[in-house]
């Protein structure tokens, strides 16, 4: 099923919209994904990620706009190429396993459709099942599997045919972390090894940032930002994106003669734009724990949670919470466990701040 790549876009969509019975689910989606690249779709629940995948797969036809795959228009005004002609693989969010087929039968299906002979088919099914750690369960009915095992069958089925384009809809959501990391590595190797093009919906940013060449952050049916992972982390397009990516706290700062201040506390000259009011993204890396006396910001430890490689400490900043706004909290990482209630000082590293023009109408 592998074919020649051309240097064109493997998947591109122009100005896609989709409505279900009058309700607009997707609006003005533009995507262009070069062959061999992986696009991660991030976005809140219900924002339209699955819908976008279904459009690409040909399970839905767009209300307006068009979609091309490998330079050929597959959906658009008067054009609709059915799913089976689009040569994709897909992991469905609800797995979509066929209950009447065995695990092996489910995985073998795409190969059968591609007309691959029995011997090769069996070998490839076994290989795909081994890849997801289910080699021993080939003969079982999918109903006799655990949730995570079912999800892995869905993954095996999507990749067994080595289609040029694979759509992953939260493919690892029900796997334990160890397995998830193994599978991310496996999938990454596969995608790169075969030069596959992939769209990968996930709620796990580390997965997204690990696998993806580009990340699209969706919000309410639109793409809020489409960028490389580095770019996204370093330069989120909006406070919303930064918040969604949990990059850090957004503080609203006011400039006066002495420099910036936050909720009444002077922070000094931090650089930043020449405006009276600005939102600033304070990532944990932009803060350093320091002595209370010298600190620009002080606060109280709300919680310290062990995560990955150290403790994530949540600190409530001192200063009156502005009416109608959430209490300002920031997170920092620490390799010692801090006590809840402990008071600490924080120093801001100005070069690690990211500024956004404040929009007075949008309370942060």
């Amino acid at each position, binding site marked *: 099923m592998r074919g020649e790549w051309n240097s064109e876009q493997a998947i591109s969509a122009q100005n896609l919209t989709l409505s279900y019975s009058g309700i607009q689910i997707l609006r003005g989606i533009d995507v262009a994904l070069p062959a061999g690249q992986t696009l991660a779709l991030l976005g809140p629940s219900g924002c339209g990620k699955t819908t976008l995948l279904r459009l690409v797969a*040909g399970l839905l036809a767009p209300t307006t706009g068009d979609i091309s795959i490998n330079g050929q228009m597959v959906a658009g005004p008067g054009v609709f190429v059915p799913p089976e002609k689009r040569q994709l693989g897909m992991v469905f969010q*609800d797995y979509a*396993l*066929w209950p009447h087929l065995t695990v092996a039968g489910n995985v073998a299906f795409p190969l059968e459709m591609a007309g691959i002979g029995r011997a090769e088919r069996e070998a490839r099914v076994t290989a795909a099942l081994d890849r997801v750690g289910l080699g021993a369960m080939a003969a079982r009915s999918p109903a006799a599997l655990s949730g995570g095992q*079912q999800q892995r069958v869905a993954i095996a089925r999507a990749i067994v045919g080595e289609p040029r384009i694979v759509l992953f809809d939260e493919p690892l959501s029900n796997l334990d972390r160890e397995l998830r990391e193994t599978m991310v590595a496996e999938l990454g190797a596969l995608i790169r090894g075969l030069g596959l093009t992939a769209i990968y919906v996930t709620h796990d940013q580390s997965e997204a940032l690990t696998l993806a060449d580009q990340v699209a952050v969706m919000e309410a049916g639109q793409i809020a930002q489409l960028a490389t992972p580095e770019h996204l982390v370093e330069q989120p397009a909006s406070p919303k994106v930064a918040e969604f990516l949990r990059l850090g706290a957004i503080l609203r700062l006011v400039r006066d003669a002495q420099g910036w201040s936050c909720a009444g506390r002077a922070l000094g000259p931090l650089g930043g734009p020449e405006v009276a009011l600005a939102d600033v993204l304070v990532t944990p890396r932009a803060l350093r724990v320091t002595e209370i006396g010298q600190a620009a910001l002080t606060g109280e430890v709300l919680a310290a949670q062990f995560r990955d490689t150290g403790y994530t400490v949540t600190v409530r900043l001192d200063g009156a919470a502005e009416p109608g706004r959430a209490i300002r909290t920031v997170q920092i990482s620490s390799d010692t466990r801090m006590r809840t209630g402990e008071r600490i000082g924080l120093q801001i590293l100005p070069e690690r701040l990211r500024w956004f023009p404040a929009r007075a109408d949008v309370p942060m």
Partner: protein
Amino acid sequence: MARSVETVSPSVIIAAVGLGLVVAVPFLFIVLQAIFPELGRGSLTAPFSAFAGALGDAKLIGMTGNTLLLGVLVVVLSALIAIPLAVARALFRVPGAIVWDVLFLIPFMIPPYIAVLGWIMTLQPRGYLEQLAGFNLTGFLFSVPGIVFIMTLNSFPVVYFAVSRTLETVGSRYADVARVFGASPMRAFWRVTLPLSTPGLAASLLLVFAMAIEEYGTPAALGSRAGFDVLVTAIDLRVSDWPIDLPGAAILSLVLVALSFGAFMLQRWVLSRRSYEATTGKPQGTAKRDLGPWKWPVLLTFGLVAFVATGLPLLAILAGALSRTISGGLVWSNLGPDNFAAILGDTTGALRALGTSLSLGVAAALVTGLLGALSAYAVVKSRARGRGVLDVLTILPNALPGIVVAVGLILAWNQPWLPVTPYNTALILLLAYCCILLPQPVRYATAAFHQIGDNLEAAARVFGASPLTAFRRILLPLIAPSLLAAMLLVFAVATRELVASVVVAPVGVSTISTYIWRQFEQGSVGLGMAMAFLTILITTALPLIVLSLMGRRGSLL
């Protein structure tokens, strides 16, 4: 949804063409016959002239009311008998499940006029019951409750099969979830399991309603004595003696169709209000439960129902078959295998009829099964425009009396300008059976499709299956339990269909039912009963094989 650009699936096209051929063509001619009384002679004069006469009948309203009453009563009683059995069959390990299925299929194999005759000969004064037990139930037999009772015995299996197959798909999982949230087993059943089996329930009740308002034999044999006239009696009167009133019969049939159309709209409304997709992409095990202490009560119930619905009529038929004369009664000197010997003596005629009927039964089951599944797919799963029309087409023949269908077929296929025609070949019988019986597989398959999540087909398409392949490899196996049950029903009914067979059978061809019926006509009740008994034994073999094969594959047990 914006799907207009997608090309219409071949399944939909096949379904449309098939339905057109099997249903729309004869129906069109029935309508034309109703409008143009002289249609048979190829003349379109005096349109609508027959309406006033047919609809102006003073008794029409009463008969329509009786018809409705009969339909509703049979539906209710069928549901009451069938649902508990279906629940036990679907959710629990009932010992001998296949045997019960076959036993419940047999009532369909008994030609209704024989079944009624069997009941009359059993329950009337000096009938078998009185000869054996000293009392008779003639008062009950010739009353509305008696009619309803006997018709229910012939139709409850439709509900039993549909609901048990639907419930099998639902499984006990959703009810278990309800129990976690505090529902007692009964409440879980009423609030979750039963509503989830609505597709099968609604479909089968619709079928039973249509069958009940369309059936002729029982109301005619029992109802006339109870002063209970229904529309079919009136239709049959119009075609039973000279002068024949075909337009009148066609018009009254359209009234029947209208009644069943109303029931159909009700069913559609029920099904469209909610989702019943119990088969999702995350399969869950649905092991059947053990009956535990309920084993014997349940078996007893199955046994009782099977005995009354299948055993008694079969015994009555056997008694008739073994009696040398009817007037001789059940005494040893009067019993003997003479009638069976006579059938075996006329093996050629009987065997030919048997062969014709069995092959027509199998063919009708296959054709209606395939066409039914495709039509149901087109209606439930496709987004093709005009699928509502297809749905309506599948319901039209439901309430048409067999004789009217037969007339429609002749009108349609005996046109002089047709270059080729199935008329006067055995094919016309096949067309007739398919037209009459198509609603069964369609309704069953429709119910089954309502239970299947859309993503299962979508996944097949994404992985390279064409619409037809996805249909064959994914959807068809998923609806197979329901569809096969419906095909067995079709087989059973087609092997004994009489009314249409008598009218459209090509000259020189006889089927089991016409064979039996001709024996009756000559007064050889015993001979007919013997033939009926033998053919039931033989036709039972096929369902038995099919069911046990499926049982072995685990999809039914």
